[in-house]
């Protein structure tokens, strides 16, 4: 009995510093004083207890950084969205069409971000939003593909994500998408690089802890594209994956590669239930 108590006290003493210093905070994300976001929610069933709660990366950032996302004027990611809004209406390619020619207002994209990556029956593959945008450009507009992780593409993904802001992420992982999802899951738990780290090493087993000066989040991607303080522009999901894999000191997959497409589907599914936040602010 006494031993048990002491163990409990010791465990508490060990746990307390992490709680006070580094754990996800309890702040509330409300955008423009009106749009309430779900930033913590019960983990989806497929996680099978690996996480009890899924938490947006927003909770792992400083108050100052959090504040930048709470007002669309302070959110400099909106500069990218505005640039994309101009592009939405700009005619490009041999067919003399813009995005607006077929889709009308960008608002018509409401709900799209929340369900991507998504199985495309005609193409027989899982497609990211970037792939779908390029498919539109080449087959409907007769225009050049955008560079997968280039600014124009990431800004356009930002504009489309904004239309779903506040809606729950809800990517399908069953049916024809399941094989890709399984591949993504495999990658998530595979250790890579000289540091021998998997995604799970940091973002499942150690979120809330500090890795040197960095506060580890769950690596959720509901906030992408993210305006990073680091490079002061919108960054896509694959770009962030690349940075993470590079940090394990491994050769990374390419943006738009089948591996990262599969990983994006899997990581997106880990955040099913969190609000779409893009464009978010991260460090």
């Amino acid at each position: 009995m006494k031993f048990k108590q002491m163990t409990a006290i010791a465990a508490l003493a060990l746990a307390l510093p992490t709680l006070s210093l580094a754990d996800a905070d309890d702040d509330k994300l409300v955008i423009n004083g009106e749009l309430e976001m779900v930033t913590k929610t019960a983990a989806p069933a497929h996680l099978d207890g690996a996480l009890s709660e899924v938490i947006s990366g927003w909770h792992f950032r400083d108050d100052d950084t959090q504040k930048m996302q709470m007002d669309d004027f302070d959110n400099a990611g909106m500069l990218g969205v505005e640039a994309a809004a101009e592009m939405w209406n700009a005619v490009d390619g041999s067919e003399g069409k813009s995005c607006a020619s077929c889709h009308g207002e960008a608002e018509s994209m409401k709900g799209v971000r929340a369900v991507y990556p998504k199985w495309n029956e005609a193409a027989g593959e899982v497609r990211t939003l970037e792939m779908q945008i390029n498919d539109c450009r080449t087959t409907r507009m007769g225009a050049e593909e955008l560079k997968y992780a280039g600014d124009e593409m990431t800004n356009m993904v930002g504009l489309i994500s904004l239309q779903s802001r506040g809606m729950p992420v809800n990517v399908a992982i069953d049916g024809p998408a399941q094989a890709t999802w399984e591949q993504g899951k495999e990658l998530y738990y595979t250790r890579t690089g000289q540091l021998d780290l998997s995604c799970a090493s940091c973002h499942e087993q150690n979120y809330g802890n500090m890795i040197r000066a960095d506060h580890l989040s769950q690596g959720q991607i509901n906030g992408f594209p993210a305006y990073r303080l680091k490079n002061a522009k919108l960054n896509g999901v694959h770009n962030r994956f690349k940075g993470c894999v590079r940090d394990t000191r491994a050769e990374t997959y390419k943006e738009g590669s089948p591996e990262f497409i599969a990983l994006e589907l899997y990581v997106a599914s880990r955040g099913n239930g969190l609000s779409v936040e893009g464009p978010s602010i991260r460090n």
Partner: protein
Amino acid sequence: MEFSRRDTLALGLGAAALTVLPFRVNAAADDAIAAFTGGAAMADAGVTLTAPEIAENGNTVPVSVSAEGATAILLLAAGNPTPGVATFNFGELAGAHSASTRIRLAGTQDVVAIAKMADGSFAKASSTVKVTIGGCGG
């Protein structure tokens, strides 16, 4: 290399001298301060500088300055390759004499704000901001 007792003593004195030297950031920052104040003395109260203790990323660090009755506030990053950040000149229609912006810091360093008051006096505030380089966020 071996240190003699005398060497060690000298090193110790040198280190002590460094720690007791009065407020002195670096030559370029000192020049900028001198150009702004004309070498006048600076009060320790009268200007408020708000900066994070630890910056999430040195590339975008939110800072605010405020000084009631100031005509101008000079903001310096003493440890940057060039220390100048901004000079806020308040006009006749300024509300509170305060301003916020986002700045770049090349590493852990002192950020300095110096306010020029309407009566020609000066006030100074400084704040150390820790900046980590590299890592996942860097």
